[in-house]
């Protein structure tokens, strides 16, 4: 596996990014898009927790802007990969980066569980004054995961 990561680092594109202003540019784009992802998911989390926008049904509230979140996520992912390939071998052994990947996987799992199991009874509480217990758990877990992803991402750069 180590050979594969050094092969990635040796790619002409990796060197091009790592040795120029491309890296800070990609990092800036990553910060901008990732923070919009976090901010807009915060909307959903607070709605699921019953803390904001209760006058709008949860399902519709989420559906009406989440495609923008996915678009921003795609850009954050591509810019992140661009930074990753400059020092792939270093990133994969970086504890903070490993934690970030685990938290991203947990965020995805939480999203999938809520999508396929947690909101089966959404019709019952969609417009109610109080959200379901599953919705509140999913909202809190998502908030925790994304805060953790941000912290681990920022911490990655602090480790040598």
């Amino acid at each position: 596996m180590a050979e594969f990561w050094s092969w990635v680092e040796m790619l002409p594109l990796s060197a091009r990014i790592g040795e120029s202003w491309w890296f800070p540019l990609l990092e800036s784009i990553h910060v901008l898009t990732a923070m919009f992802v976090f901010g807009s998911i915060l909307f959903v989390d607070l709605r699921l927790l019953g803390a904001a926008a209760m006058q709008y049904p949860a399902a519709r509230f989420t559906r009406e802007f989440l495609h923008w979140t996915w678009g921003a996520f795609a850009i954050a992912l591509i810019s992140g990969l661009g930074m990753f390939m400059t020092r792939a071998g270093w990133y994969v052994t970086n504890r903070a980066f490993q934690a970030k990947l685990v938290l991203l996987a947990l965020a995805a799992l939480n999203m999938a569980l809520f999508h396929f199991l947690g909101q089966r009874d959404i019709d019952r509480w969609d417009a109610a004054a109080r959200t379901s217990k599953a919705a509140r758990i999913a909202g809190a877990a998502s908030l925790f995961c994304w805060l953790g992803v941000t912290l681990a991402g920022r911490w990655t750069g602090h480790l040598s």
Partner: protein
Amino acid sequence: MSDPLRELARALANSGAHDAAVDWLRTVPGLPPIMQTLHLASIAVVLGTIVVLDLRVLGLAVPSQSPAEMSRRLAPWTWSALPVLLVSGAIFVLARPQRYFTNPMFGIKFALLVPALALTAALYSVTRRTDARPAIARVLAVTSLLAWIGVVLAGRWIAYVDYLFPPE
């Protein structure tokens, strides 16, 4: 750097707040990334609220919600993120005032922050009263977002200033 700024940087560097900031950042485990995450999470709140309102005002998302109601609901979130941004950023400036006050990107960031705040205040003020989405609201939506993107980019490039302003 102008003389008043130089004076301010020197005064800050000699203050007790400087010593406290340096001490905390050095001795509290993980404090630098934690404060930066607080700063980033507040940026997420500012960007999230403004982008979603902008998309609504421009007719690109959330068609079922009233723009005026959204504006009134989102404004407190945007404004309450600002003190958190100030405190989480100030600790780094206090710890190394000379580094920041001599950095051109730091100056650009704060020069952009003024229009960003003014345009955001104008956007909220125009949109909170009407669902009509007048042309001025659309202009404010686009310009306020561009100003905030500029603030975030300049903030990130404080660390990469040498690419744009090569040291002599």
